[in-house]
């Protein structure tokens, strides 16, 4: 399954395709694509019989995104200072990022979890919707829009889902203040 997936993904010009240690990470394949390829990735996985388990966002304000480094440091050898130093180095990075993470999974007995992530410019977080292809993405995208203000272009209704109808704030942004 994994090698087949990897070759399929190669056609999408991904920014990164990393096989991860399931025992530690909880998923098998970590794919990073550009915003213009998110729908293609969804189409590919949908065709192969995956289902979308969740969509979420992460706000990387003033930090270097972590998550898909090639060699996840094992816990016992972790060096918090090194991690911190890395974070500090990230603060001079040119632009802050906003990340959208799609979790895909299968129900047919083949154990294969795929994470598709897409990093956006925090100042203008926009990417196309996958809800036309996968109706279940509808609410997940609305929720992500609620919490992070990420705009899913082409989505039929991005009005607040969990927040009050008139909410104009995005509480899970790191610079949010009540």
């Amino acid at each position, binding site marked *: 399954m994994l090698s087949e997936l990897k070759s399929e993904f190669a056609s999408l010009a991904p920014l990164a395709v990393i096989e991860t240690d399931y025992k530690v990470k909880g998923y098998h394949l970590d794919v990073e694509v550009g915003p213009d390829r998110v729908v293609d990735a969804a189409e590919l996985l949908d065709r192969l019989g995956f289902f979308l388990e969740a969509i979420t966002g992460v706000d990387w304000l003033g930090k270097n995104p972590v998550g898909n480094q090639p060699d996840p440091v094992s816990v016992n050898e972790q060096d918090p200072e090194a991690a911190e130093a890395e974070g500090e180095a990230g603060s001079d990075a040119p632009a802050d990022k906003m990340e959208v993470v799609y979790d895909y999974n299968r129900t047919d007995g083949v154990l294969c979890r795929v994470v598709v992530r897409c990093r956006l410019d925090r100042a203008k977080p926009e990417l196309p919707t996958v809800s036309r292809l996968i109706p279940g993405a509808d609410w997940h995208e609305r929720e992500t829009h609620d919490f992070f203000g990420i705009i899913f272009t082409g989505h039929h209704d991005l009005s607040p889902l969990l*927040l009050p109808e008139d909410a104009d*704030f995005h509480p899970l942004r790191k610079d949010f203040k009540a």
Partner: protein
Amino acid sequence: MGKESLQSAIIKFAPLDKLLDLGRANSLWPMTFGLACCAIEMMATGASRFDLARFGAEVFRPSPRQCDVMIVAGTISKKMAPAVQTLYDQMPEPKWVIAMGNCAISGGPFVFEGQYGIVEGADKLFPVDVFIPGCPPRPEALIEGILELEEKVTGHRRWPRVEAV
């Protein structure tokens, strides 16, 4: 309507008022109104083991117009607050409110600096008669709260208070 109730205050039917109070206290009709976790304990209180019917308060009505006590069982979010307020306003007088659980008392565990979603206590919306602490309170605690409310209505307590050993 208002005039009529005023008149009854001027002309005192003291024994009749007492009798009415006794009737009200012993047949409280709570509203079926579960907000969160506490609602399950409220259900448990009404169900077989704790049997709220022993205290005459088992007639849970889904419509606010038929109720005289509102048990606020759970977290009131800012989105829900107008609905809760409306329900309270729709209840006919005389009416009482029990705030069940920490969320209804003060926001409970969901209060933190920078919280954006909840109302910190039912008493921010309307007057509350009895507060029952717990997260969630046990069914026995809810029963005690009902007895406390009865005491408030009639002025005397149906059951002797159990002293802590």
